[in-house]
């Protein structure tokens, strides 16, 4: 059943609302998006202002109270050196929420440029670049990360660059297919009939029209990036102790689950899970709103 147009022409033959306004309203109506967005917003608030409302200093140790189970004093218990797990979970969102979005941004910018070039020029350029990107995608992120970190040393920048570049080909692929479809439309021919440069046609004519799929792909990738950042810090790359970080915390404490100290791991794991779920719900909502 074809959807009935949502905005009707007014008596002078013009429609009032722009497309973006409609997407915005449709996002507000999407429960999926609102729930996801609320979760993400919560963690963003923790990252920005966590220090102010965390009950304890996340770095302050308290050996006497080490490994205390959850109680009214320490809601999520304490870790091996008595640091408050609740405070560490709250403040621990800070690094992951800077590194993952920056990595995604890098992936989006690089992927969009590559996708525009391959989709616009097609032919030999497309064949060569696409094969290289496919080869790149075949290597697991972790291996690339290991090599890069060995070569460049551990730092947040390395993590951002590694994750950003490994995700770029995936975004490039999505953008390329959208560009291939746009390229067939007559406005591209009209641009050629004005002798517009390739750069103008790609970035001024085509790019604005492929923003919706890029937006969806970016939000989806953000979920994966969060996961990848957590994985890398679990493996000991990226954020270094004693900074509170979820992946790092799990890595430091998971040996103790056997001893019954589950709270040192569970809440960090839940935090990662909830953030990924929140981002994915929001991504679903964006996808739904753009494809309505």
């Amino acid at each position: 059943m074809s959807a009935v147009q949502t905005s009707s022409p007014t008596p002078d033959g013009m429609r009032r609302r722009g497309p973006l306004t409609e997407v915005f309203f449709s996002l507000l109506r999407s429960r999926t998006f609102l729930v996801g967005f609320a979760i993400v917003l919560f963690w963003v608030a923790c990252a920005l202002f966590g220090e102010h409302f965390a009950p304890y200093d996340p770095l302050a140790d308290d050996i006497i109270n080490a490994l205390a189970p959850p109680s009214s004093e320490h809601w999520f218990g304490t870790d091996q050196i008595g640091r408050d797990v609740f405070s560490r979970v709250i403040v621990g969102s800070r690094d992951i929420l800077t590194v993952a979005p920056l990595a995604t941004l890098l992936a989006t910018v690089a992927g969009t440029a590559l996708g525009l070039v391959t989709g616009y020029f097609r032919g030999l350029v497309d064949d060569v670049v696409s094969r290289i990107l496919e080869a790149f995608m075949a290597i697991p992120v972790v291996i690339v990360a290991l090599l890069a970190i060995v070569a460049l040393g551990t730092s947040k920048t390395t993590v951002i660059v590694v994750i950003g570049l490994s995700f770029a080909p995936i975004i490039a692929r999505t953008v390329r297919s959208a560009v291939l479809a746009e390229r067939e439309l007559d406005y591209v021919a009209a641009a050629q009939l004005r002798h517009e440069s390739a750069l103008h046609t790609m970035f001024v004519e085509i790019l604005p029209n492929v923003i919706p799929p890029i937006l969806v792909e970016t939000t989806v990738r953000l979920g994966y990036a969060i996961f990848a950042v957590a994985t890398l810090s679990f493996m000991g790359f990226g954020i270094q102790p004693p900074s509170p970080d979820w992946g790092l915390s799990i890595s430091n404490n998971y040996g103790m689950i056997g001893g019954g100290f589950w709270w040192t791991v569970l809440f960090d794991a839940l935090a990662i899970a909830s953030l990924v779920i929140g981002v994915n719900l929001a991504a679903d909502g964006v996808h739904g709103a753009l494809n309505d």
Partner: protein
Amino acid sequence: MTSSAKAENALELTDLSVAYRVTGRNRAVLRNLSLTIGQGEAYGLVGESGCGKSTVALTVVRYLPRNGSITGGAISLDGQNVMKLDAEALRRARAESVSMVYQDPGKALNPSIRVGRQLTEIFELGGVSGQAATDRAIAMLNRVRISDPVSVMQRYPHQLSGGMQQRVAIAMALANDPSMLILDEPTTGLDATVEAEVLDLIAQLRQELSASILFISHNLAVVSNMCDRVGVLYAGMLVEEGPTEVVFNDPRHPYTVALLRCLPRGGQRKDQGRLDTIPGFLPGIGADIKGCAFADRCALADDRCRSELPPLYDLGGRLSRCFHHDKAQALPRATPSDVAPVPKPAAAPVLRVAGLNKTYASHGHALRAVKDVSLDLRPGETLGLVGESGSGKTTFARLLLGLVPPDEGGTIELEGKALAPRLENRSDDQIKAMQIVFQNPDSALNRSHSIRHLIGRALKRLAGLSGKALEARLNDLVHSVRLTDRHLAVKPRQLSGGLKQRVAIARAFAGDPRIVVCDEPTSALDVSVQAAILNLLADLQSKEDVSYIFISHDLAVVRYLSDKIAVLYLGRIMELGPSEDVFSGPHHPYTEALLSAVPKLDQTETARIRLDGEIPSATNPPSGCVFHTRCPRKIGPICEQQEPPLSEAQAGHSIRCHIPYAELARLQKAVVAEPA
């Protein structure tokens, strides 16, 4: 199938109101619509897009989209109250007594299931299975005049031509012997020749079957040929109804009068006067309408029309919802008909094409999309390109523009200078001299840019303007295509189809072009909007002395605008000559068939020439004359062996046919004289 005695009427709609819920508000689409269709009757529903035609079709079987609801009234199908049916009974009614055929057969058929399976499935639902179902499917395909049903049943929908697909869709619709057949624009996407075939088929089936037909179309001529009675819908209301011939020959509602005047008829040409138009726009869905819905656009409207809803006056077997039904035909013209005659000095051609070829490689075969085309075009002249889809019209246009490079050897000369085959190698002056108005403005206008940007950019690049000069020229241009300043800030999406096409025209005219290619510029538009666009193109031409290459499948439209016609078939020019000569004949047998296929509003059809089969594949064109496989006037082996030359039969009028001109004249005169 219901075995009970048939009700008096196949379909009765009483005071039916339907609304769509959009952004939280119910918006009325159908307003107290009442109509009846008798048993075995064919009822035509006409009106412009957005007036609720398709909603009627969907409502009959309660098949509205999720946001649609019936807000009042009753539907009675063969005596059965559709509103009261539960889910199961409704399913049975949809399966057994009503069938629908939609506009696009390619979308109505499942692309991944063989045609035979899709057909037998219907019989299986009715309890017939195995060989019996297959036999019935074959019988059904025979009924829709498919000559080799067994092989067609083995194929997938995409392996069939558009016309064949629509036949299969009709066969599926008829499989259950429905009492009511709803045809929603069944021929709109098809070529005129195929449309004629499908309409013939429907007309024949009407003789054989008892089904009543609800025929929905925007094409008045099609409805006039197919239906006993016709209803004119406007803003979800019935404004006029009556026997088809009476309504079209003696309309009693200003809307019907205006709609009929928008059509170029009886061979009307641009130098004989402008087409009439309907000012203003259709009220949006859900608009609050106080008086007559048409009052805002009607020159006859007075205060009463604007404040009080006119009743449906019964004028003896016909209805009109107009206070002034007695003087509806005195509706003043919205557009003055007069045109200043433009003397045409015989000038040197602005465009000269010689020996143009285009060959594509298709799976290792050569596909000759355009073969050996030569013609020229003078300033201020319009060349009409006609032919079925696949005849190479659009490819030819793209070759001229340089969007596709032609094969080596041919030449294109613009104002005496040879044009480079590729667009990149043409000078800025050359590209601005030749521009195009595309068929689909949604594709041609970048949806991310504002109208100001779209036209402004063209002025900057093509006219080399900037700053104040650009602003001034932008204003001129916008006004010359009759847009207003209010339209400049918005995006294309916010404009109606006709306004978008005006933007596209403004853009094409930005660099003072010598030639504008118009590729089906009005085929996506309603007739009233089409008339306005055709008038605009004619006005711009007489003002700017620009030449057009006008591509259209609508021969009346081509005839209105063109001075010269080229008829293309499989990439070859079959006939080339002054518009009047090509239309009045004697003409090439292919042109004759094309003209005969056009449904005519006045039902004065004299000759029926139908082309069998489809346009052959361009990878493997027939030997000799490429048209011989379908030619109704084939004279013998010479047609299969030798390709006839394009020879000049009269001054300026060339025909590619073995039959001598005098003989063509005699044959075609004979047909006209014969009673149909």
